[in-house]
């Protein structure tokens, strides 16, 4: 599963996107956030961290399926 990265999450990870190894058993948005927080502790220090699935904000209980576009959404600051 590939995760698109923006803003400060891109800088924390050091890349525009991130591949979650297929051996990881990540089924929900919440599990993805927990796994990412363990891999990149700096993500836990953000004011908030949302996940978008197919360009919509996703809840923690939402199930992830193959083929979806998944992105990390750090605190927005447009305008």
């Amino acid at each position, binding site marked *: 599963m590939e995760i698109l990265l923006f803003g400060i999450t891109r800088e924390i990870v050091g890349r525009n996107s991130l591949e979650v190894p297929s051996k990881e058993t990540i089924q929900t948005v919440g599990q993805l956030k927990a796994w990412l927080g363990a891999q990149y502790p700096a993500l836990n220090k953000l004011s908030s961290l949302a996940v978008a699935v197919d360009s919509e904000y996703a809840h923690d209980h939402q199930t992830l399926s193959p083929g979806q576009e998944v992105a990390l959404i750090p605190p*927005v600051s447009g305008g």
Partner: protein
Amino acid sequence: MERMLIKIVEDIDLQEAYQFLLSPKAGGIDLFVGTVRDHAQGKEVVKLVFEAYAPMALKEMEKLAAAAQQQWPIEKLVMLHAVGEKLVGEPVVLIGVASAHRDAAFTACRFLIDELKKTVPIWKKEFYQDNSVWVNAHP
């Protein structure tokens, strides 16, 4: 007739937005333009860099536009947000609402810019003389 102009752009074009908003049924147009201020958090700002998750940002802006159109009688609506490097004084966001009466134009315009700042996936990095920071990233 197309009623909404919603775009992520390199440069904000006020004239394009204004021409789009003009309508024989509108008596009032409210235009909000956000520009790069020379100071923030007590520091001197050199430039800003904006980054967007464009497909999602457009979708979120369209949701806000639809919400505004449900709440107020709107003739025309424009939402433009710039990406890339912006210097002090340059425009970075433009919201425009045309309505038969000015109350709806003002109220909807204010709603759209306030909500855009809360939900639309666009990020701003502020560059000061000595360092830089992603705005809002940390508590």
